[in-house]
């Protein structure tokens, strides 16, 4: 029996579950009870640990031994190595993509080493289905401080001073939004957590809800107290059943502990939260469309000019709507203070940014870095560079609303303002790396296919314009492009961006604009030489082969 207490953390995020991590957990339980080791070894099911690509993940604390691609058959060896205080099981260790050397402790893996985990502080470390775990990390202490020692004005002031900007993508100052909702007239107000993470290539909201649901709830309750709301909703995307389940458990546990419901912590403040499941419409990430959806309507954004949701929102009442990660930051800001929070990031972009780092990069997963970190550091240090010795071509941020940035911008700091200046945006935080085998015309075509499918159809520029842009891109990809098509795309982009009703249409041209801006030569190769330099566009590849 080891005299030391070990904790074995088994990741139960959606990614690791797809690798059968639930069976790993049951094998562990069997092995440990079979050997009568439950005194010395504790097993814990956690949310997403971030390095999904290497899953299923098992971490042994306190040492922090990091096992990747674990299978149920590996469990006896892992236990054996623990009992003998021996070397970690080498075949399961992560290997540095450059040196090939095994790295036993996750703290030494570049993927984790260069990160700064504030929002993801508990993800992968606590059991998301057990409120005691969250309480043990200091959870709900910020709620106590806010409700019992602070006024609305003080809370809003603290959030404003922290410099936190909305992490749903647009980066609107959070404190300013809270202030507007607080000042809005009416005694009935609502707080909504926007968890309709619809951007393809982004999964950080899902991971936070699956891995640390109480941090989101705590942030929402503090927000509700600050603006004077008594009812809240979490609008979760239908594709995230595990997040819905864990949020449901978290709400029930918080109610039981008196953090939700009536007279919270004897402060006299009442607040209830319900989960509202979306039904699969990308446009519902837009605040007015989301509100329509909760009201039981088609998700049509409200026509312009429209008052702000903070004044006329759900059921025409003042409504505060923030993203999952924005709420998850609130307990930190209240507990540690705005000065502490503002010490992270850059002058105008405070705190951290969370990205789903995926695509043609060695280390895929969920990462969190200070605002202002360079793209190069994210892709080459944390991401481990491009696999198979291929060349980097572009990095796509911001999903269908963002753009593709070329190698010349790798030293750009990543924050709201720099990304927007480069023609892309932070968006919901997808970061997809592309190599020499990715065709930029195909990528633009892919995104326009997405937006024209997801356009709600209400306003003409978006409904018709995105389809027209898609058709032109489709022609180019099929080798039927005409020399004037690039100018036509730019003209269409201008009209769609400037006249669409909501952000879906206004930002839909970004993937086309950035690929033309930075990779015009690829368009020209398709149009003038009938050639796809990356070898992706089928029609052009087979035609070249036929000659």
């Amino acid at each position, binding site marked *: 029996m080891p005299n030391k207490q070990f904790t074995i953390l088994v990741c139960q995020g*959606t*990614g690791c*579950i*797809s*690798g059968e991590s639930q069976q790993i957990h049951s094998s562990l339980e069997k092995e440990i009870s079979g050997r009568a080791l439950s005194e010395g070894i504790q097993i814990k099911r956690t949310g997403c640990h971030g*390095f*999904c*690509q290497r*899953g299923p993940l098992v971490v042994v604390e306190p040492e922090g031994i990091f096992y990747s691609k674990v299978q149920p058959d590996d469990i006896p060896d892992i236990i054996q190595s623990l009992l003998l205080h021996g070397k970690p099981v080498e075949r399961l260790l992560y290997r540095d993509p450059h040196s090939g050397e095994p790295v036993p402790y996750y703290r030494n893996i570049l993927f984790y080493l260069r990160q700064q985990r504030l929002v993801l502080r508990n993800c992968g470390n606590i059991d998301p289905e057990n409120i005691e775990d969250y309480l043990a990390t200091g959870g709900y202490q910020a709620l106590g401080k806010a409700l019992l020692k602070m006024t609305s004005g003080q809370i809003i002031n603290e959030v404003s001073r922290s410099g936190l900007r909305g992490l749903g993508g647009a980066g609107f100052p959070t404190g300013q939004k809270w202030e507007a909702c607080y000042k809005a007239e009416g005694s009935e107000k609502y707080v909504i957590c926007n968890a309709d*993470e*619809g*951007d*393809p*290539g*982004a*999964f950080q909201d*899902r991971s936070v809800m699956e891995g640390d649901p109480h941090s989101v709830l705590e942030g929402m309750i503090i927000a509700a107290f600050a603006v004077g709301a008594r009812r809240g909703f979490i609008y979760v995307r*239908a*594709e*995230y*059943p595990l997040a819905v389940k864990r949020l449901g458990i978290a709400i029930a546990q918080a109610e039981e502990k008196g953090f939700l419901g009536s007279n919270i912590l004897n402060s006299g403040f009442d607040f209830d939260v319900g989960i*509202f*499941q*979306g*039904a*699969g*419409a*990308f446009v519902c990430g837009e605040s007015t469309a989301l509100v329509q*959806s*909760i*009201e*039981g*309507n*088609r*998700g049509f954004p409200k026509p312009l000019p429209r008052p702000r949701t903070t004044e006329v929102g759900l*059921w025409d009442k003042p409504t505060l709507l923030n993203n999952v990660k924005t709420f998850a930051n609130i307990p930190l800001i209240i507990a540690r203070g705005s000065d502490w929070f503002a010490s992270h990031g850059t002058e105008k972009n405070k705190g951290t940014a969370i990205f*789903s*780092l*995926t*695509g*043609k990069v060695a280390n*895929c*997963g*969920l990462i969190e870095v200070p605002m202002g970190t360079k793209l190069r550091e994210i892709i080459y240090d944390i991401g481990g560079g491009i696999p198979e010795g291929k060349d980097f071509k572009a990095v*796509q941020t911001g*999903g269908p609303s963002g753009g593709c940035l070329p190698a010349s911008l790798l030293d750009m700091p990543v924050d709201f303002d720099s990304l927007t200046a480069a023609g892309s945006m932070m968006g919901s935080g*997808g970061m*997809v790396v*592309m190599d020499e085998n*990715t065709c930029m015309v195909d*990528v633009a075509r*892919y*995104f326009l296919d*997405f937006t024209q499918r*997801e356009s*709600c159809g209400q306003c003409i520029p978006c409904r018709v314009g995105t389809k027209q842009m898609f058709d032109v891109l489709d022609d180019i990809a099929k080798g039927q492009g005409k020399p004037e098509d690039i100018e036509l795309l730019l003209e269409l982009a201008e009209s769609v961006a400037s006249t669409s009703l909501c952000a879906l249409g206004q930002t839909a041209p970004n993937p086309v604009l950035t690929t033309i801006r930075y990779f015009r030569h690829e368009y020209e190769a398709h149009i003038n030489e009938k050639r796809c330099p990356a070898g992706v566009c089928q029609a052009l590849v087979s035609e070249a082969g036929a000659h």
Partner: protein
Amino acid sequence: MDELEEEQLRDILSYYKGKKGELIPIMLEVQANFGYLPGEAIQLIADFLNIAEGQVYSVASFYAKLRLLPLGRQQVTVCRGTACHIRGAPQILKEIEKAIGINEGDTSCDLEYTLETVACIGCCALAPCLRVNTNVHGEMTPEKARQLFPASSKGEQDAQ
């Protein structure tokens, strides 16, 4: 819908208050029980919420998740997210269309398979991925896709 199913539907509705804001939650729950939204159910939901039947159809047809036709026993959902796309999702989709003998958006006549795509499953680090009912399969290759759906399981009746 037979009597038993209608009874089941009325039981579902009895947990709601009859407010219009409950429309989407009701439809999702009915669909979770019946697999889709049968015409008779739409009518009963409309009566329950005191709104026009057309209004229910309007909302049902707007959201990708809501279905007006029955689905196959095995719902195969191929992710067409960005990471999956650049790692070969279009080839995976083609392979599965070939393996189970139906196209994207279709249900086989024997109601064994429904093949759909989705904007993103959120398993981007394991791209390309797909889902069969609730099980996610990551790091797909055309070979792995063929193994998931051996040729013998092809919806035979579909060919007729």
